[in-house]
């Protein structure tokens, strides 16, 4: 019910939205809950397990009950706290976890079965018969569980991430936070003030209190205005600090566009990473409920929330309200309600000696022992000193005291300490390096106290930051003491709810203790207490008290469960913003990319680069046809292939040769200038890390290549060796992968093609196999290497990357004139398999030089990385799986990589496993399928027939074990 003249919002501006299809009118500035309460709607949700009717408990992000779904279709957001949703025209709100309707929910029958559904009951049943778990029990449980539903559609909204740095992050803009920010900012510190509310002021917006003789909210507005006017201050409303991490890093979630209709432009949310030299936790305190029988009915609310709805939004949460508490704060609720003309049926103070100066019926030493009302509170029963009294009320405002919001302070494993006076936990100094708590978060509960504590923390932070704060003039405010007498549980008939969201009762916690789940963590995990969306914000302290009592320990001894980030749940879309679509990993394009795409080549990813898979020509229906043609073209004429993606590292310095001797297994210091050598690198564990070529350009100058995928890894490794293992060597490394575009010119007509382009022609004499030289290509200075991965007479021509595209187009055009053309990765793969060359399919991290038949390449004359470990007995045993070629015996339809190898007539099971196939192709050259694989003791088994079994694809083939070099084993073509 809206009360005319109350509240801080302008009720003349109506805004309408829908709740479960019903049109609701609220006012600008309303949240969904304030608007619902203004319309006398109390039933908002159903609980998780028993589908109990639930209403609104709080006015903040800790809300456990009023979780709703907003929006629809792909925009639907489940489990939104209705307390935090600012209404806007057209907003759709739906209740959750009910069927067919909120008022009539079939699964509320669960509530009747509650005696059988106690804590952990599922660990004790549903075990027989075993097969029914997946088929029956689990689907039933799953369907009943869960709260809201995801739409199932892909996210279509924008989310963002951003970074900020500051001297001081102030978390919370209540009186303490505002004072802290003002003090530090006036001293010149660079301050960020973040508050999760849309409006800054904290409790000052919810209370009728005066500061410096004016209403608290006016004082807050003035403080915010002063801060907003300072250049060294950034205000971040609607921003919840969600986590505290190492080195002053904080996560924060800003609701950027959630309070407006989605317009596609404004991001919905932004996830911030804020790095702050200091921080002040001024996040206030959260009121806690009391566990009395049936304390979960809609209409039973936290007293502070009742005041907030009244004072900020001008809404009375009921027509006839009772107030129940164990502390003086509760009285304020009655006072505010009466001042607003709302009927207060009773003020029930559990303390016998409480003095209540109110013009309302007062019951001291009273206890609420029962409540009734099916879909909302109708009546309460109060045990008074002398008997029982029944009161007809539609709202019960409850206060069990306040818990400082210590969560962020505990994110680094620090445990808060028990404060007997306030019967709650407070942060200890130093839990988060650089963070101090102030105000209610620090256990200081009066307004004057909060202002002073905030100022003190602000001064201290400024001083830490090397700034001097001038003496702060303290505003005048009330300094009433906070007095309470602990009250956790009220016995009586009916269940006393602790965790509203997970439907955990006092009885559940007691059962856990009885069954010896006595550790607080056991109790939590067994009962699910505190594991719901509010992470126990409303219930943990109360549950601890119950456990402490049940196990005969004190609360501090019982200890808390661990506080974990995030403080409020954070959407995956916000924290992972930017990745959807193509942001997750980079795409790298070679200079020939456009030319390849123009030729219709499907581009496939190769170590972040994109490379053409094949170049279809008219009439070709399958990739195989194109591939076969390209292979034949290379073998018979000339093919062009962009090999720029191979890593290229320039190695220079007087000790460059010695350095390379140390990182390669073979010797590079003996390589003459103008020559290229194949090189093998091991990890220190003796396995093959990578291979490539090494070209010598001068005494102290080499350029080496790496495989595409390992480029960054090898660079890092070489730097490690240079800086960490061999700082005695004078050598410098720089990656030049992107500086050079490099193209393979491959095939018997390769030299003819090049000689048409080069300013000075080459011959076998001037550029023999494994030679390289500087080359002028149509006036551009380049590098020419005579190396081959295909077994053909071949070159690689490198030019500065800016000439890459032009050169590629020229090369392909010339090749086509010679009966050749461009070829892609498929053909490249066939060519190298025909030649028995290995790639990452074979150098898969587990192979040794011995396995691939290269152990002779490990020079014994010098030390090198991996040499020692490669010599361990188990690394060079004949029984190891060794690289072999596999050639079908007779006609086969297919060979498959991933098949396992068996002796021809052995059963295909692990015990008989002899090895596996790594690469296969159809070779148009050899006119057969070919395979490479690893076979136990393989090199001794050439000529043996083995069976390849691929269960998954249903393929079997008998092959002969052969030398892996299928084509031109003498290498005549390379040199020809």
């Amino acid at each position, binding site marked *: 019910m809206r009360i005319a003249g109350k509240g801080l919002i302008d009720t003349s501006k109506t805004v309408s939205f829908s709740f479960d299809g019903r049109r609701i009118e609220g006012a600008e500035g309303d949240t969904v809950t304030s608007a619902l309460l203004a319309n006398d709607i109390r039933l908002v949700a159903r609980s998780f397990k028993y589908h109990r009717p639930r209403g609104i408990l709080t006015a903040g992000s800790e809300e456990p009950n009023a979780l709703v779904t907003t929006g629809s279709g792909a925009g639907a957001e489940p489990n939104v706290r209705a307390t935090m949703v600012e209404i806007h025209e057209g907003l759709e709100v739906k209740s959750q976890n009910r069927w067919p309707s909120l008022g009539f929910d079939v699964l509320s029958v669960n509530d009747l079965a509650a005696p059988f559904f106690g804590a952990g009951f599922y660990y004790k049943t549903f075990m027989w018969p075993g097969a029914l778990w997946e088929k029956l029990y689990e689907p039933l449980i799953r369907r009943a569980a869960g709260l809201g539903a995801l739409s199932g559609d892909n996210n279509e909204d924008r989310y963002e991430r951003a970074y900020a740095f500051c001297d001081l992050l102030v978390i919370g803009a209540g009186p303490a936070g505002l004072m802290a920010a003002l003090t530090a900012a006036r001293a010149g510190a660079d301050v960020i003030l973040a508050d999760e509310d849309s409006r800054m002021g904290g409790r000052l917006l919810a209370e009728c209190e005066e500061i410096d003789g004016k209403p608290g909210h006016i004082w807050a507005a003035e403080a915010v205005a002063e801060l907003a006017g300072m250049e060294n201050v950034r205000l971040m409303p609607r921003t919840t600090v969600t986590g505290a991490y190492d080195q002053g890093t904080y996560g924060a979630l800003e609701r950027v566009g959630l309070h407006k209709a989605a317009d596609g432009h404004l991001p919905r949310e932004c996830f911030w990473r804020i790095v702050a030299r200091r921080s002040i936790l001024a996040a206030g305190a959260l009121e806690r409920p009391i566990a009395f029988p049936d304390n979960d009915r809609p209409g039973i609310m936290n007293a502070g929330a009742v005041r907030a709805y009244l004072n900020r939004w001008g809404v009375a949460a009921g027509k006839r309200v009772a107030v129940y508490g164990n502390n003086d704060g509760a009285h304020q609720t009655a006072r505010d309600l009466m001042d607003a003309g709302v009927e207060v049926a009773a003020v029930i103070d559990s303390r016998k000696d409480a003095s209540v100066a109110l013009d309302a019926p007062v019951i001291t030493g009273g206890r609420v022992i029962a409540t009734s009302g099916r879909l909302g509170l109708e009546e309460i029963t109060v045990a008074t000193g002398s008997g029982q009294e029944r009161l007809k009320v539609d709202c019960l405002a409850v206060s069990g005291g306040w818990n400082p919001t210590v969560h962020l302070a505990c994110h680094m494993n620090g445990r808060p300490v028990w404060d007997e006076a306030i019967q709650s936990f407070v942060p200890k100094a130093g839990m988060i390096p650089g963070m101090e708590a102030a105000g209610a978060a620090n256990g200081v509960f009066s307004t004057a106290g909060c202002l002073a504590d905030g100022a003190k923390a602000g001064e201290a932070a400024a001083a830490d930051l090397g700034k001097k704060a001038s003496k702060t003039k303290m505003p005048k405010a009330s300094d009433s003491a906070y007095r309470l007498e602990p009250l956790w549980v009220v016995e009586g008939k009916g269940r006393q709810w602790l965790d509203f969201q997970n439907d955990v009762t006092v009885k559940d916690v007691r059962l856990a203790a009885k069954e*010896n*789940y006595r550790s607080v963590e056991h109790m939590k995990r067994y009962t699910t207490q505190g594991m719901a969306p509010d992470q126990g914000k409303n219930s943990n302290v109360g549950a601890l008290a119950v456990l402490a009592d049940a196990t005969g320990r004190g609360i501090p001894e019982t200890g808390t469960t661990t506080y974990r980030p995030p403080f409020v749940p954070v959407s995956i879309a916000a924290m992972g913003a930017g990745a959807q679509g193509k942001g997750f990993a980079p795409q790298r394009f070679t200079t020939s990319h456009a030319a390849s795409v123009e030729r219709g080549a499907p581009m496939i990813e190769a170590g972040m680069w994109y490379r053409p898979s094949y170049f279809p020509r008219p009439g070709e229906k399958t990739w195989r046809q194109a591939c076969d043609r390209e292979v034949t073209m290379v073998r018979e004429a000339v093919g062009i292939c962009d090999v720029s993606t191979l890593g290229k590292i320039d190695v220079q310095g007087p000790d460059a040769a010695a350095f390379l001797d140390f990182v390669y297994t073979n010797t590079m210091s003996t390589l003459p200038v103008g020559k290229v050598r194949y090189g093998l690198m091991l990890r220190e564990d003796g396995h093959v890390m990578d291979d490539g070529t090494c070209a010598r350009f001068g005494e102290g100058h080499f350029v080496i290549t790496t495989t595409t995928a390992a480029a960054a890894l090898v660079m890092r490794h070489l730097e490690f060796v240079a800086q960490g293992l061999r700082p005695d060597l004078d050598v410098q490394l720089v990656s030049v992968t992107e500086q050079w575009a490099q193209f393979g010119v491959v095939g018997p007509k390769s030299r003819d093609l090049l000689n048409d382009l080069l300013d000075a022609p080459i011959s076998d004499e001037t550029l023999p196999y494994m030679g390289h030289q500087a080359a002028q290509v149509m006036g551009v200075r380049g590098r020419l290497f005579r190396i081959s991965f295909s077994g053909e007479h071949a070159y690689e021509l490198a030019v500065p990357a800016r000439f890459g595209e032009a050169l590629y187009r020229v090369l392909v055009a010339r090749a086509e004139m010679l009966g050749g053309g461009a070829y892609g990765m498929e053909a490249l793969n066939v060519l190298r398999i025909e030649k028995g060359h290995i790639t990452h399919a074979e150098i898969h991290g587990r192979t040794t030089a011995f396995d691939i038949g290269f152990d002779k390449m490990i020079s014994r004359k010098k030390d090198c990385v991996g040499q020692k470990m490669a010599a361990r007995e188990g690394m060079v045993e004949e029984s190891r799986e060794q690289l072999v070629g596999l050639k079908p015996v007779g006609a086969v339809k297919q060979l498959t990589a991933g098949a396992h190898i068996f002796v021809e007539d052995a059963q295909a099971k692990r015990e008989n496993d002899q090895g596996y196939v790594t690469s296969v192709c159809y070779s148009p050259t050899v006119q057969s399928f070919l395979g490479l694989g690893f076979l136990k003791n393989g090199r001794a088994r050439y000529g043996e027939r083995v069976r390849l079994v691929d269960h*998954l694809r249903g393929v079997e083939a008998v092959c002969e074990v052969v030398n892996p070099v299928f084509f031109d084993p003498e290498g005549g073509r390379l040199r020809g």
Partner: protein
Amino acid sequence: MRYSGFKVFTEGLTGNKGWKPVWRDPEPKSEYDIVLIGGGGHGLSTAYYLAKNHGLKNIAVLEKGYIGSGNIGRNTTIVRANYFLPGNSEFYSHSLKLWENLEAELNYNVMHSQRGLINLFHSDGQRDAFARRGNAMINQGDDAILLDREGVRQHLPYLDFDNIRFPVYGALFHPRGGTARHDAVAWGYARGADMRGVDLIQNCEVTGIDIEGGQVRGVRTSRGVIRAKKVAMVAAGRSGQVAAMAGMRLPIESHILQAFVTEGLKPVIHHVVSFGMGHFYISQSDKGGLVFGGDLDFYSSYAQRGNLPMKEHVMEAAMTLMPMIGKARVLRSWGGVMDMSPDGSPIIDKTHIDGLFVNCGWNYGGFKAVPASGWAYAHLIATGEPHETAKRYRLDRFRTGRGIMDEEGTGSQHNLH
């Protein structure tokens, strides 16, 4: 006390007054035949099988916190038998068989749910590597199916199939893979061990290991000295510290692995889905939370908590392949201390000290190993001989270079897994 649906029913009718403690809280005795250091999954299952399979009685499990306070209660609960290297294949295959009968074995519902594990791939090369793995699984007698793109679509219609960078080519499907309720596994084994006379001693930190003449004599603890004929280390992430008490260094680095759970949601993800290229995997708990995780934070740590870079990376991976879950909200994140071995495979072995045994190196995959590890470790402790399924998990494999099990192919030295 036997648990059953009937018992739950009768207790429900009588006010749930008859439930008994799941385990005792005994005072530590001054001497045991066998002391296990660490009350995690592996320690508890070892104790259980020592009692059950070998009829041994005089056993204590010493746990510095509460039972199950370590990784057993922090993992993402995936249970699978999809390894391909000999040594791992038979071990995890054995484990899965034990899982399949665990409820009946323990009379405790660990909610083992064989909902199927789907490992996605995005290139021909990855497909072949997965084919090799899948064939190994079948050779071992386990199950595997190679799904093509359309096959994946039938199971997981919500993926971004045409993601530019990671288009879905297909997947390796392991129908018997799934999840289980982690705490229940610890509690079920604990209860079973306690019922068979094992003393579970909580809040008892081992601070020293007494060795005389090359023979272990017992341990020193926060609750006094306890003599023992055999001492078995099972301290997972804390293995390094415990071994140091015996003057040993282990091939272990401890790292942080984070995990995440969202608020409860109605069922949307019905399998365990793994996007290996993004180091992302996910399943949905029976309570409705999406449970997911990613890669190590990648710095050695004992803090049981992680940092934003990896959190954001994991969320990015989620948005890359599953933009459908963008509006799910992460409720809680946590971390566990992982005992990372050089080759990514575990160690179950004797040490050079008589009577001192070691079990560690579970990396991020030791939850599914809990039954088989306990089985094999109990066998080793009781008989002195390695169990058939675990005889390759030797400590000396790094010295001999024989039988290194690097499933990922990233290397067998630290920080590559």
